[in-house]
């Protein structure tokens, strides 16, 4: 099956490119690490407020920081595609018999792999700082699957934007513009009950909240399927929309 081989070749290419730009990799990991070190200090007294759902802020915030990381690496995916479009490399690939689907699959799989490895680093650091996951290894694996799935759904936004606008500034700008409001107006870093009423409403509509609640269930309470499954439904819905848009834009580029 040439689609499998082709996907593998392009996955390896994406990995090589990533590892050869260590500065980019460093800075994209730096942000969540700073969040982890700084926020957990800054808000450490939160856990003493009655009604706070975790015994420490670190325990509470780790899932949120993991998602913030997934979110911002997803937005770099579109930039790589813009780079290939503008350098002519994508067009060059299209003059070969390479499987068209493999071009997208290689990209998406490398995004997913990257976000899992970065999450592993962040989780290891959090563990070192005193965080833990009640559901054990099985829970950690499920967390990574959830994060990878979440990353794919958001990669779809940046990929479709990149393919449509062909400008990395646009992808970067929209990504930066979306990150903070989506993150802060969700349950990623603050419990729902601590927010003003209007923000609670926004937070309940925010897809990030669903995913972060699912991860938090795995770290704090256990395999709480009533929280985990809705997250999958929300991510699935986003994935269908964003990857559908990506496929549509990609078809337009390759035809």
């Amino acid at each position, binding site marked *: 099956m*040439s689609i499998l*081989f*082709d996907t593998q*070749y392009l996955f390896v*290419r994406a990995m*090589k*490119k990533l590892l*050869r*730009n260590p500065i980019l990799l460093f800075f994209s990991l730096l942000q969540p690490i700073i969040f982890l070190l700084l926020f957990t200090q800054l808000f450490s007294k939160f856990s003493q407020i009655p009604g706070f759902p975790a015994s420490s802020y670190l325990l509470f915030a780790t899932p949120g920081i993991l998602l913030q990381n997934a979110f911002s690496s997803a937005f770099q995916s579109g930039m790589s595609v813009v780079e290939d479009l503008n*350098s*002519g*490399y994508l*067009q*060059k*690939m*299209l*003059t*070969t*018999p*390479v499987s068209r689907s493999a071009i997208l699959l290689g990209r998406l799989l490398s995004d997913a792999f990257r976000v899992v490895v970065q999450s592993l680093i962040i989780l290891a650091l959090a563990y070192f700082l005193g965080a833990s996951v009640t559901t054990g290894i099985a829970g950690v694996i499920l967390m990574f699957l959830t994060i990878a799935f979440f990353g794919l759904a958001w990669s779809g936004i940046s990929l479709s934007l990149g393919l449509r606008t062909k400008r990395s500034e646009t992808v970067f700008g929209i990504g930066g513009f979306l990150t903070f409001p989506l993150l802060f107006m969700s349950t990623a870093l603050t419990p729902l009950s601590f927010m003003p009423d209007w923000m609670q409403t926004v937070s309940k509509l925010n897809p990030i909240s669903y995913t972060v609640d699912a991860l938090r269930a795995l770290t704090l309470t256990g395999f709480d399927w009533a929280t985990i499954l809705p997250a999958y439904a929300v991510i699935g819905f986003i994935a269908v929309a964003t990857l559908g848009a990506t496929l549509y834009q990609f078809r337009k580029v*390759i*035809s």
Partner: protein
Amino acid sequence: MSDIIKVENLVEVYSDGTKAVQDISFVVKEGEFFGFLGPNGAGKTTTIKILTTILRKTAGSVTVAGYDIQAEAQEIRKLIGVESQETAIDADLTGRENLILQGNLQQMHGEILKKRVDELLKLVELDEAADKRAAYYSGGMKKRLDLASALVHKPRLLFLDEPTTGLDPQSRATMWSYLEKLNREEGVTVFLTTQYMEEADRLANRLAILDYGRIVASGTSMELKQEIGADAISLSLEKADVINAGMKEKAKQILTTIKGVGDVRDSDGGLTVYAKNGGFIIPDIVRAFDESKIRLSSINLSSPTLDDVFLKYTGRRIRPEELKKEASSFMMFGRRR
């Protein structure tokens, strides 16, 4: 020889309404070195993109090696090699990795691919720099790597879009000798576009001259030049006289009265005169101009070149431009983009 490329009434209209290719027809025979000569914006890249299956044609029919460009694109992709105008290599990968990946995408693997890559690295003299990242290559090295990557799978038909634009004269000469060797010794059919008439003249067995999306002339370089049938005398008027349009008209009139003068055409700084025996007429021209107080800054006699052919059909000269200076092309040719 069979036709490896057959293009009939090809039209390309971009979504913004630009008519980049307007009803062109031509054939390229197997084994031929075919040149596509035209200024910036003529439609060369657009034509190549259609022929290499990455741009859908608006109208017309195109077959490559007997395969229909739309229905059988996948078959075509297996037998063509493409070097695009923008030197599309992956700068994060080494030269060798670029070639291996390109081979992989052409469904080659293992020992056979490794051998082929080594062979190509030697051919384009990149064997020493093979394991350096392409980001550190010079412009000439990048072009050579791009050429090599177009050759990995031993294509029957090679497309080259302005392969020497932006290269220094020495790199250009090296590129020319590779291309000649490929065509003569390995029998690869080559379709090359260029803005340089010397390049088309030297390399192409047959060529088509393209302007504003139309083929204005085609044939062997010899045939095209013979159509001019005369020597070309280029006259440059002094600056002040060029600005004074009346003076140019007057000069034209004087020229038509001189015996032996054929065609007279406007060219940038003055006029170009075609005459059977150019050498004999020059003294007459000088004398006549002197009497009428028209000042000449230079006179140049040459046998006709492809540039004269272009001038004959379009009324302009080809002015090659570097790719990056698109703004100036806007002013010179009044074209978009």
